[in-house]
């Protein structure tokens, strides 16, 4: 027992208030309209929807993927890849483009990795909150009477303000803003990119360390440590995606993103990674064969083209992304 509980309660109250206030002011998801640093909110889904809303009415191709696909800049249609974009994002965006916006989509490129098919990677809160996209998410059946037992609305706000994920995102936003101000608009940083940036200041070094192979390995190991198998709901989304594309005569080009050999070999020493990857490729091959998808495989040992570079182990360098861009465009020409 504590000798003086006042210290405990004062510290606890102060800490929680500070953290909630910090998250409220930074507002990384743009939920409260504060955003004092005046930086773009992390919610890339809204940006994608804006792009889609203002796209050419004759838009015929879309590219779905995660941050690994953001550098495919020469894609002839619209690249709708998202940071940590998972299959439920792709399915919802495809439905939005076809059902709501009535684009005559003829082909899509689906860049899919098993890392985003495991349950330890949660469904993004911003997808669940997005009213244009969440209509196509699978709703768990709730008994009629059970719907009476719903928490009051302010609980969602508290959960957002006092959450470790929000805190991480707020810190990222703060660091980004500080970095921008300290570099005082120095373009050289942006040209080189975060990886390999010749920054001498502390924030640059933090960014560099965060994007090293070691950091990626730590991040992926953590993800796979608590992942025992593929997420069943995500397997359903994959089926729904394939079924919807098939019903609407949309051709699918499946891309297996690669990684550096060093990264791959390190990860393969983790039994969960090995098992989940093998489960994923068995599953995806069945889907591919059933729906007649074409395939581009750039995983180590599978890719036969020019050598590819992955500065942080998983993300392609710009020249390497251009090589895959060409490959995808070639694939699209064959499809049409």
């Amino acid at each position, binding site marked *: 027992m504590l000798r003086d509980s006042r210290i405990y309660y*004062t510290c606890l109250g102060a800490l929680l208030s500070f953290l909630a206030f910090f998250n409220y002011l930074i507002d990384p998801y743009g939920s409260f309209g504060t955003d004092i640093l005046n930086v773009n909110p992390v919610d890339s889904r809204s940006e994608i929807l804006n792009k889609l809303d203002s796209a050419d009415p004759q838009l015929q191709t879309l590219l779905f993927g995660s941050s690994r696909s953001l550098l495919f800049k020469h894609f002839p249609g619209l690249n709708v890849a998202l940071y940590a974009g998972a299959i439920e994002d792709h399915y919802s965006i495809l439905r939005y483009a076809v059902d709501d916006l009535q684009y005559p989509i003829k082909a899509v490129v689906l860049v899919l990795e098993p890392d985003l098919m495991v349950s330890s990677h949660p469904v993004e809160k911003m997808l669940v909150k997005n009213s244009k996209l969440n209509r196509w998410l699978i709703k768990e059946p709730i008994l009629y009477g059970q719907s009476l037992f719903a928490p009051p609305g302010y609980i969602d706000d508290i959960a957002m303000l006092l959450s470790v994920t929000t805190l991480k995102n707020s810190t990222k936003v703060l660091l980004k803003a500080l970095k921008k101000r300290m570099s005082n608009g120095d373009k050289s940083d942006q040209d080189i990119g975060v990886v390999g940036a010749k920054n001498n200041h502390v924030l640059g070094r933090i960014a560099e360390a965060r994007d090293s192979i070691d950091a990626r390995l730590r991040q992926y190991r953590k993800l796979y440590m608590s992942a025992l198998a593929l997420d069943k709901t995500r397997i359903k989304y994959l089926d729904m995606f394939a079924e919807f594309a098939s019903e609407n005569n949309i051709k699918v080009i499946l891309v297996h993103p690669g990684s550096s050999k060093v990264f791959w070999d390190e990860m393969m020493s983790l*039994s969960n990674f090995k098992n989940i990857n093998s489960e994923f490729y068995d599953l995806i091959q069945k889907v591919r064969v059933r729906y007649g998808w074409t395939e581009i495989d750039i995983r180590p040992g599978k890719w036969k083209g020019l050598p590819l570079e992955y500065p942080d182990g998983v993300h392609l360098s710009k020249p390497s992304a251009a090589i895959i861009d060409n490959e995808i465009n070639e694939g699209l020409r064959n499809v049409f």
Partner: protein
Amino acid sequence: MFFNSYVFIFFFFPVFLLSWIALFRTRNSRWTLLLLSSCLFYAWWDFRFLALLAYIIVINFTAGNYIYGLENQKTKKQVLIISIILSLLPLVVFKYLPWLGGYASVLLESESRVAYDSLLSSIILPLGISFFTFQALTYTIGLYNNKCSHCASIVKFSVYVSMFPQLMSGPIVRYQDLDDQLENIGDLRNKIDLKGGVELFFIGLIKKIIIADRIGMYINPIFQPGADLSATVAWLAVMGYSLQLYFDFSGYSDMAIGIGRCMGIKLPDNFRAPYTASNPSDFWRRWHISLSTWLRDYLFIPLGGSWKGNVITYRNLIITMFLAGVWHGANWTFICWGIWHGLMLCVYRATPAHIKKRMPVWFSVLLLNIAVLIGWTFFRTTSVEHAFEFFNAMLGFRYSAGAAIAWPIYFMIPLGYMIHYFERRISDKPVKLGWSYAVLLAGASAWAILELGKDAPFIYFQF
């Protein structure tokens, strides 16, 4: 609803507590408030199972009335037996039927087998069923044995069975321990301990979220059947599990007791640093105390206890622990775990006193911990085959460099045992802790709140 959720911490509990202290100040109004809040708490998970809770309450309350009103001892015994059978019936249907019924599926044709298997797998285990069933039974059995007084009010009895702080995972409280407290609930002067209660609640939350869930995240992949493990990884995983289970369950108990304190109700301790015990009997005086004393008083002693010679005592120990295993779950692994603990108790009892005396304490603690870890291996694995696969790995027979364990586990395990040892020191010799501890605790509490969104259920909810 779970204690480790935003809705409980920021809505349910503050609203309840405010009403409890400020608005409802008479005995009857507090009974009503506590009953309705407990129903809401349970219904938040699945309102359909409120009917089951009501069934257990009605059966035992009615049986209590009969037992109290009857003169004839034989008829009283018949009422008691009927009430025990009727109370255990839902437990059999929801907990054991899916397991035992599974063996019967081989008798069916393939199509009917699919339908039968899907019927069995559709049975949901109601949360806390074993806990509230046993809690209700302590009243009926206690009344039959003249250990407690008759409860004339069904509202009071319903409050006793369904009290939300310990509804899901105990501690299992006997009626005689709560009778007076519930009767005098209208006057809680000098009983409500908000400061101590909230502090204990947060200690439980820290144990659950920061220690147990984190360890669980690291060790769960290791317990996959078929994983290639080295002896070191297997031992680390089972040590991690023993700490995860302790911090998860004792965390829940701390939260329950803390909530009780805030309400002015004293709930019994459920844990006293069990891994510092030096023998199996001592371990069971420190682990899940409310269940072990229940088993002692309602099974071991009625079977004859330890007064009828060694052979009968060993038999009673094995039967009692076998049933403890069955209580925990419908799987052979739990039965093996129960029998293992029964054997541990028998071996300890059979060991001559001079050997016990000569053994250094540190060695006894080490030996006990190794035996307990073997037991937890049964408890955690998914089947007996998986358990033996794991034992092979622990003995180094399945050596492989295949599966690695996350490096933080190397820190978490010593840290867990250190905290455990610290708890033992505090429970043996209570001390008032200074400001540095208060600041540390506040930091850890804030961290636990930030991690709430993961909503990991308590391990003992499945029992």
